[in-house]
């Protein structure tokens, strides 16, 4: 493709918590944005455009918040856009921001995604303010049961994912949940929310923000720290409900992955990708997305989990940051995946760094598992894909 290469030269995130009572809404997005600017060795005035993303506005009760946050993000006199694609929004916002660089529209773009769920109530928001809300887990649970039946996965797989992600989170100071003594038994004993999902294998509700500074090739080369290069991006959507829709392996997810692999030149994702940050708000989505994006074959996803392949020290680490299971400010979660993937290939992931990671995949999904946003980043603009 003849578009401009896009580099991630700065990443920042807030300390995610149930309630950040020390911050205002502008303060929350600025904490992440200022950290990204510092990481990029830039200030607000270096930025040419701002792209902000978040999930439904009723979560905080502020309509079209880019308007009241414009000057808080240094956007006065600049272009600013607000993206919203439900749960995948953090990912699609990152892609829309990278699209501005690739189109040679801007040289330095700040992108931010956030949610401050403690201002309102996420379950109330997801229920549209009505009684009897299913919760996201209630919608996804039957699909997980279908996956379990079809794949023959033993019931402990979900618990194993929950333990893995929570222990990874203890190596991520920004992660909301810090549960160093979590065990499979504790997950199994925790109350059942929606069969098969127990309390300790479903995501928390968090206040949090993520931010990235993206530049063109020149900016990437001149960056004070090694950048992450965007090798490819893909977004795919499908109808949420129609008779006969495959909700367990949504076609939009399969196509999104293959469009991305083709664009990047990946023929064997399991071998050629060193680490993945996948949107796993409920444990069973790790095996389901490993298969749903053809990283593992049918019925193989849960075996990758069971064999420890997706552990931090495994051959295909998934969610070394602790993932959505450990921090879930919904609007930011997608960008946390996209940014953590960048940090891995920049060698900036700290305690949860996957040694020698050169090619990383990030994925976010939203709605009734019908919106998909994915990107692959690398430490080199033209890596030799082993």
């Amino acid at each position, binding site marked *: 493709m003849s578009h401009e290469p896009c580099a991630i030269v700065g990443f920042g995130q807030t300390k995610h918590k149930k309630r950040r009572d020390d911050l205002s809404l502008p303060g929350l997005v*600025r904490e992440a944005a200022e950290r990204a600017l510092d990481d990029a060795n830039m200030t607000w005035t270096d930025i040419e455009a701002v792209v902000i993303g978040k999930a439904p506005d009723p979560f905080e009760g502020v309509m079209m918040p880019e308007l009241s946050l414009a000057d*808080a993000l240094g956007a006065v006199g600049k272009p600013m856009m607000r993206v919203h694609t439900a749960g995948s929004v953090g990912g699609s916002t990152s892609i829309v921001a990278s699209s501005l660089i690739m189109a040679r529209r801007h040289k330095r773009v700040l992108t931010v995604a956030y949610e401050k769920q403690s201002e309102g109530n996420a379950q109330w928001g997801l229920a549209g303010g009505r009684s009897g809300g299913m919760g996201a887990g209630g919608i996804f649970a039957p699909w997980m049961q279908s996956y379990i039946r079809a794949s023959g996965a033993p019931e402990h797989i979900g618990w194993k994912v929950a333990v893995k992600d929570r222990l990874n989170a203890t190596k991520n100071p920004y992660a909301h949940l810090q549960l160093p003594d979590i065990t499979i038994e504790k997950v199994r004993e925790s109350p059942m929310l929606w069969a098969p999902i127990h309390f300790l294998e479903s995501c928390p509700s968090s206040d949090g923000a993520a931010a990235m500074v993206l530049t063109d090739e020149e900016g990437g080369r001149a960056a004070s720290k090694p950048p992450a290069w965007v090798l490819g991006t893909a977004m795919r959507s499908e109808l949420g409900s129609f008779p006969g829709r495959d909700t367990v392996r949504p076609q939009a997810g399969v196509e999104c992955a293959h469009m991305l692999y083709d664009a990047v030149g990946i023929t064997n994702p399991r071998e050629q990708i060193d680490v993945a940050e996948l949107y796993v708000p409920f444990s069973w989505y790790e095996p389901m997305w490993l298969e749903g994006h053809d990283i593992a074959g049918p019925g193989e996803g849960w075996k990758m989990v069971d064999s420890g392949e997706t552990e931090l020290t495994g051959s295909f680490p998934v969610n070394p940051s602790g993932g959505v299971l450990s921090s879930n400010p919904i609007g930011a979660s997608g960008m946390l995946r996209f940014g953590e993937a960048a940090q891995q290939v920049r060698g900036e992931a700290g305690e949860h760094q996957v040694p020698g990671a050169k090619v990383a995949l990030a994925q976010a999904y939203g709605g009734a598992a019908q919106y998909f946003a994915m990107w692959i980043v690398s430490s080199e603009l033209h890596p030799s894909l082993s």
Partner: protein
Amino acid sequence: MQCVLLGVVTELRATTHTIEFPYTRTLGPVIGPFLTGLRDRRILGIRAGDRVLVPPLEYDPENGNSLEPDFVEVGPAGTVTSWAWISKPTRKHPLDRPFAFALIKLDGADTALVHAVDTGSMDAVHTGLRVTARWRDERKGRIDDIECFVPEGDGT
């Protein structure tokens, strides 16, 4: 309600629903002191270079740089710089009788605050009018701890 649809007059039915929630907003290092001030009958601005911003912001709107929490008390009196006469207030408006929404540049401030001005009639409000804050008896740290502004000299 009637609606002609393809020549067939049909009675329009509607379903109603209410979205309600008691949001609890955390305030941070600048908005917190501002609302604390209002509770204590003081209006605070923040210094941004040689300007005093009201309402105070955590950053300079021109460039986004953070501002030190260097607060300056302003008002309670000020000057109306623009206004609108609201003849039929909604249930969300600060007053339930006709009033003026106005931009008010408080004494000591360089930017104008939006608030309600109660002059009783449209004829009594004009750009340049001197007004002062009328505080609620029961205040809880919110912008409407100021019930409204009234012409200077009226009982506050």
